[in-house]
């Protein structure tokens, strides 16, 4: 049975609550201290945004034929929306950085203003996504702290 301290340590590692299914699957792995297996289970589905600067070329490449219309509509919106107006500058220069959380939030907020392009915005937001695995030594460190195994005084 996983102790509350072990459970808290693993939840702190992934920065979220673990589901009942995950806890069930983790139970034997923690019991056996299969830290490689624990890391693999906790890493499933984890992604992060790597440094990603995009511009018209990337958008057209990702959206295909819809990319041109999306950029046109974005530029048109910029005529009335000053934030979009200035955001077009880095987009045009190919340096709009999707790894900045605020940039992704701004882009996501455009769903409300560009209802025809909600799917396109969602697609653009996936650019630069990469796996964000938990390393097994992070698991070891967390569990060893929880279990008091980092040192042993004789």
């Amino acid at each position, binding site marked *: 049975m996983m102790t509350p301290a072990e459970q808290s340590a693993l939840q702190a590692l992934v920065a979220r609550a673990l589901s009942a299914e995950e806890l069930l699957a983790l139970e034997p792995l923690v019991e056996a201290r299969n830290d490689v297996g624990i890391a693999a289970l906790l890493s499933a589905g984890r992604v992060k945004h790597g440094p990603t600067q995009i511009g018209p070329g990337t958008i057209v490449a990702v959206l295909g034929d819809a990319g041109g219309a999306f950029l046109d509509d974005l530029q048109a919106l910029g005529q009335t929306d000053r934030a979009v107006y200035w955001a077009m500058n880095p987009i045009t220069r190919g340096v709009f950085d999707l790894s900045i959380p605020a940039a992704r939030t701004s882009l996501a907020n455009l769903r409300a203003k560009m209802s025809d392009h909600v799917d396109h915005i969602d697609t653009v937001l996936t650019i630069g996504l990469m796996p964000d695995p938990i390393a097994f030594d992070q698991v070891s460190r967390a569990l*060893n702290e929880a279990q008091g195994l980092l040192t*042993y005084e*004789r």
Partner: protein
Amino acid sequence: MSGEIIEVRAASAIVLEGSGSALANGAVGVMTSGRYAKQSAGNGFPDAQFALTCQFSVAPIKNSFIAVYARPMAVDGSNNTQAPEATRPTRFIGQFVVNDVTAQQTMEFMANDLPWDAWYYLHNVNTGQQLPVGWAVSITPRTFKAAP
């Protein structure tokens, strides 16, 4: 040839741990009979070959390490050094290179110039798996002498 330097090893190994407790990846454990004074138990032989025999339940990472640390005792006649931690070996002695098998495996390394008197610890550095109950460590003292 007479007078040539030749290696001499002790007649038998000294057991520092006969059946160790489970040792999680990244954890440090002391060997049950792990206090070894080379001037007495080792007949003054300065070096020793360390041997670890163990059997993993789940295959560990190939070429990962299990390290041996020493905690020298009474270094100024009375005071002991700090017990090793996972992030601070008091004195690094050597490390075993692990194979990615679940069959029993035995590994060894030669350590030179051991502390006069110390407790010995095992650190599961990065195998990724728990070292199960039952691992054993022994040492065989070694020195050199002039050939008769």
